[in-house]
């Protein structure tokens, strides 16, 4: 079984929104037609986005940290949005675990968006059908693209490699290793949706040492009870002219 997913490293995300922009650009240019985008430069801009970068402040001033938090569909292994769909437009692909919407079958009843605790589904107010992140299914299998570019648009755009794409069911894939070795976690685990996308936490490298570790216990000078007489010039003092 394959389960394609993203691993998002909160330790390196700088909140530049490049993934948001590239996602919108790729997905508004695809064969499914443009994504809704009203008054983009006007008073009340609104539109459909598959990916957003949010910003949180953790802690209380002055001990605060800013966390940039990208959020898109998590392609749950047990997606609550799929069984509620009355038409079967919402489905999870057997072959790679991507959760998709068949835009030709969707009746736009919004029930699946009620059934997603993450708010990952947005109705396209022009086409009147539900839309969501496709994990760039129209890129990742496109053999006309160079192999290195067969990745979701958001992953390609990320300047800090905060987003890694791969198969989380393959224990040796980059994403699985990252999840395992760097403490990858899932969002809202309380609902049992088993999101496939994982997040890597903030990590800090602390060097911890104890005082006795700074002093050499088996210092030979100590052993021979050798005292340096500071009043007399040492060899260094004599020679350092």
């Amino acid at each position, binding site marked *: 079984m394959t389960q394609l997913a993203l691993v998002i490293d909160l330790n390196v995300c700088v909140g530049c929104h490049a993934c948001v922009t590239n996602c919108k650009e790729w997905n508004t240019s695809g064969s499914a037609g443009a994504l809704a985008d009203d008054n983009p430069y006007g008073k009340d801009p609104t539109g459909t986005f598959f990916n957003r970068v*949010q910003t*949180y402040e953790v*802690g209380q001033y002055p001990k605060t940290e800013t966390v940039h938090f990208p959020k898109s569909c998590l392609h749950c292994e047990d997606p609550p949005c799929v069984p509620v769909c009355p*038409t079967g437009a919402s489905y999870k692909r057997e072959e790679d675990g991507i959760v998709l919407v068949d835009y030709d079958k969707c009746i736009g009843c919004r029930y699946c968006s009620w059934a*997603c605790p993450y708010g990952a589904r*947005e*109705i396209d107010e022009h086409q009147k059908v539900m839309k969501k992140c496709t994990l760039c299914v129209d890129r990742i299998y496109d053999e006309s693209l160079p192999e290195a570019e067969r990745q979701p648009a958001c992953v390609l755009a990320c300047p800090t490699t905060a987003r890694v794409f791969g198969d989380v069911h393959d224990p040796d894939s980059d994403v699985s290793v990252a999840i395992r070795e760097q403490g990858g976690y899932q969002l809202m685990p309380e609902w049992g949706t088993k999101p496939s996308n994982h997040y890597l936490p903030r990590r800090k490298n602390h060097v911890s040492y104890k005082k006795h570790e700074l002093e050499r216990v088996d210092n030979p000078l100590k052993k021979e009870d050798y005292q340096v007489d500071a009043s007399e010039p040492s060899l260094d003092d004599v020679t350092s002219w």
Partner: protein
Amino acid sequence: MQPAFSVIFLTTLIGMGQGLFLALYTGQVYFVLNVVDKTSTDIFYSIGSAVSIGLLILGLIASVFHLGRPERAWRAASMWRTSWLSREVIVLPAVMGLVSLYGLVHFMGWNLTVMTIGAVVIDLSLIIGLFATIAVFSLYIATGMIYACLKFLQEWHSPLTVINYILLGSVSGFTLATLIAAHKQPELIPFFAGWSIVLLILAFIFRGASLMRNKRLRPKSTVQTAIGIRHNQIKQKSMGFMGGSVNTRDFFHGKTVFFIRSIKFIFLIMVFAIPLAMLIMALFKPSVIILTIATVSMYLGLLAERWYFFAEGNHPQNIYYQTIA
């Protein structure tokens, strides 16, 4: 959640239509079993069934306004194995068909005796009515389960949701039956009014229980579980965009606490207090006006009740959409 008027009208109208049919059929069963000595005339049954069908059709029309692509609505019957919405889409036409047939059999006077058990004569309409009753209860359950099955909408995720859809739909239908009786067959008023009062008290107990339960609920999802950071002080500084989106419009009612509380007060008065007083009055001094007040007050109150029900649902996705930078 942001209450959608299409769904408010759908659930209240079909709930009332189903309740009206249940009222008619209850009366017939009581008469057949010799519990009461008066039964509705065929005209009363036909008019009642016609009104019930009318309400179901109005509900169906209201539901169309909820769909982005109503021309594809027929597809909604396909996923009945997993989706309560799909089950509702299948059962609703079944209820409409069976209630129409029930009304037609009465209207045409096809009193065909199917069998006799002792002194009890079971005719064709009684059999059709039995199937219609099963369909009506299935529809109530399907409608309620659409909301009750969403486990992270904790306010809805309870058997009380289904019970309340059944009880509130039934009581509005029985009250409407009492009003129709006042027009067509005043001798039936005590029977329907009595049942309405019993159902009203039951509905009050269960709706009250649901209000009390929801008041004490604690959200399982917090900003900590939403972004997975273990710290007691987390504030959103930006939700990622400065305009609106579906996420900011569809999932929150945007009203003040005072407004919400007023709606609760209004529906408690209009659904329970006023109709109860009117129905008790109708037992002693039946009049069309009193029962019209009871029915209209109850229906308008149910619109407020349903609005409150939707607004009360607290969707965890709102955690992600708190602050515009």
